């Protein structure tokens, strides 16, 4: 028999049951009962952020760097609404997250009470599921189900909104032994018929490619993918979020494709006769103009989420099922193959259009990221913001394994990188964690420096400062006739800022000092802010302009030819 305990205690019990050792949050009026109870639970570390958005991003970074559910906590009203961007970010990238919000007393719901907001209504479109709980009796079942939903099937954020009185009421209802929900399949069985068709398509293919996305990450099926590529001699291309699910140093890795993907990777897909799309959702940044995507290819789409099939690109053979199981079964059945002449063609494209790091006569962002890769031996956990630095990191950092790459892909959230790195650093003590950020994104969430300082957190910040909102500037240069509109990005004196926060600061503006700067940052304990003053108007190439097909790749000017039809 379970003894009576308060709703607040049930929440803490639920966290411990789920193995949550760190949560990210910010207190406020209606969550006071929970914050009071929290003092009795030293096994759950609460990290006080300085803005609730960063609690969500930190929980996201915790999840992306471990595969476990990240948990964030906020009070009602503005606390809850401040989580919104972080929750939407997690939904688009299928990140397992449980967001707990407080709300006003149940009898005050709907009265515009102080700090009341309809957080369930607000978050319906940006959560996998959400709840409002007004009774302590409902908490064990709801919380258990929330973690179950967040971490199974296609993962995603689940929000539990708990009224203040529900924290205070008591209940002796035990936690359910197992969660079942009619109409919801936690582990979708493999479609064996479709798998047979996929096997035949692969047997017949002469120019196959794999495009592997974050579905491989979240289903823990990286090993199956590696074995499949090996057995069937498959070129493996990654979506932005798929980086790390296949080692970049594997000879069969072609790197990222798409708008700023490697030319050889994108060109290989355009010329393929078979695309094995594994755990990707065919984002427009990956496909280019959809009508011209891989025009001669049969598309086999492996996914657990049926709503992804033929949403953007027609799936000739949709293979539904839990990815680890599908890939495992496919690996057994797939024919052993080799594709010699196809590989010769791909090697030719790779030789002709490599990702280029320009001469080191001045400091470029690309130099910084290439050096970061070299110095860390491609082993660090890397988070980024969104923009040019993100694309260069995707191109140049040679990710080796899953849970190493934390980047906001779907929502494209500036300000994500630093708080996500904080979450990853808490989740991975002893591991090297770098936030690669631009001067634009960093200024959105840099108040979290104090969070890193308070915990003497081993997180290094690689601030790539080009004085511009770089990617927007690049588009204005290329597509708006050089008319720069509101992209000049002033910055504070980061040295003084770091000093004010008590953060170790190093500035670097030359290639000569680059390696030493990164090495010094790596050696220094605790948080370090490394500011790299780089060339202001560097552009990201290759590039497929928005709305163009992937046949029209604007090559890096350093690669001689300006445009290469595939």
């Amino acid at each position: 028999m379970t003894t009576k305990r308060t709703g607040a205690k049930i929440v803490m019990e639920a966290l411990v049951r789920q193995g949550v050792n760190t949560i990210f949050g910010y207190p406020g009026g209606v969550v006071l009962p929970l914050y009071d109870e929290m003092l009795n639970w030293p096994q759950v570390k609460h990290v006080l952020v300085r803005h609730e958005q960063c609690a969500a991003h930190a929980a996201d970074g915790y999840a992306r760097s471990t595969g476990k559910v990240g948990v964030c906590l906020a009070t009602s009203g503005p606390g809850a609404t401040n989580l919104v961007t972080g929750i939407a970010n997690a939904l688009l990238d299928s990140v397992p997250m449980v967001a707990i919000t407080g709300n006003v007393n149940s009898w005050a719901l709907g009265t515009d009470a102080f700090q009341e907001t309809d957080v369930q209504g607000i978050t319906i479109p940006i959560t996998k599921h959400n709840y409002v709980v007004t009774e302590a009796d409902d908490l064990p079942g709801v919380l258990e189900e929330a973690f179950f939903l967040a971490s199974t099937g296609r993962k995603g954020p689940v929000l539990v909104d708990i009224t203040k009185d529900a924290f205070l009421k008591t209940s002796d209802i035990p936690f359910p032994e197992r969660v079942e929900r009619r109409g919801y399949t936690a582990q979708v069985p493999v479609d064996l018929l479709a798998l047979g068709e996929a096997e035949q398509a692969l047997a017949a293919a002469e120019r196959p490619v794999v495009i592997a996305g974050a579905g491989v990450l979240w289903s823990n099926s990286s090993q199956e993918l590696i074995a499949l590529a090996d057995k069937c001699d498959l070129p493996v291309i990654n979506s932005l979020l798929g980086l790390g699910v296949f080692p970049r140093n594997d000879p069969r890795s072609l790197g990222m494709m798409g708008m700023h993907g490697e030319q050889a990777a994108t060109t290989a897909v355009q010329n393929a006769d078979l695309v094995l799309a594994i755990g990707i959702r065919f984002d427009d940044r990956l496909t280019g103009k959809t009508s011209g995507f891989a025009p001669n290819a049969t598309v086999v789409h492996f996914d657990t989420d049926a709503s992804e099939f033929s949403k953007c690109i027609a799936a000739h053979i949709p293979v539904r099922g839990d990815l680890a199981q599908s890939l495992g079964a496919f690996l057994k059945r797939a024919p052993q193959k080799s594709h010699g002449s196809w590989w010769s063609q791909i090697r030719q494209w790779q030789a002709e259009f490599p990702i280029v790091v320009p001469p080191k006569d001045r400091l470029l962002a690309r130099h910084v990221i290439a050096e970061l890769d070299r110095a860390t031996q491609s082993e660090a956990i890397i988070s980024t913001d969104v923009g040019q630095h993100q694309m260069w990191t995707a191109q140049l950092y040679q990710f080796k394994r899953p849970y190493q790459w934390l980047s906001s892909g779907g929502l494209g959230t500036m300000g994500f990188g630093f708080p996500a790195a904080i979450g990853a650093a808490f989740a991975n003590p002893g591991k090297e964690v770098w936030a690669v950020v631009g001067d634009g994104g960093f200024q959105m969430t840099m108040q979290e420096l104090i969070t890193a300082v308070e915990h003497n957190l081993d997180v290094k910040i690689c601030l790539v400062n080009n004085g511009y909102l770089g990617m927007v500037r690049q588009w204005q240069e290329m597509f708006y006739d050089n008319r720069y509109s509101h992209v000049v990005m002033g910055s504070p004196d980061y040295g003084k800022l770091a000093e004010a926060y008590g953060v170790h600061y190093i500035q670097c503006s030359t290639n000569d000092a680059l390696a030493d700067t990164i090495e010094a940052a790596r050696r220094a304990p605790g948080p370090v802010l490394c500011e790299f003053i780089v060339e202001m108007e560097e552009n990201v190439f290759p590039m497929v302009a928005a709305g163009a097909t992937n046949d029209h790749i604007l090559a890096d000017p350093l690669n001689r030819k300006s445009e290469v039809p595939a």
Partner: protein
Amino acid sequence: MNPEVHHYTLVAYVHDEDGTLNRMLSVLRRNRVTLDSFSAASAEEPGYARLTASIRGDEAIITRCVRQIEKLVCVVWCTFSGGGKNVARELALVELKQSPSDLFPIFPISEIHHVRVAQETTESITLEIAAHPYHMDELLSKLEGYGIRRVARTGVIALPLENA
């Protein structure tokens, strides 16, 4: 190119919980599908509800919507059809301003189409019409000549023919 607009009936079996309607309507709204009617009530099992929505849009977009609705955690199943595959009815209450004695000519219609008198006063008569959705508009247009004062329609309710 404008997508071709067709009429469809969407039927779903859902967990009867707070937020279920919002979630489903949110998917339709986001995909810019036109909602002509929406009807929801408890189903045969406690804790579940059946929903019927009459929607308009391009088939590809509707297909996408239905898949997105199917994956909602609150939805047990969801299906749609272009008509014919459902047993479907709509109920309407039609208040006419004529006195009952003027209405004698419409009684032949009533025999065919499940029309009966729901309420009579000295100034008006309220008819209750249960009809297949395809016939409802036709019936209402026939009644226009008798002076319609007010109409309340439930929207379509449907059961798919296959036992889903």
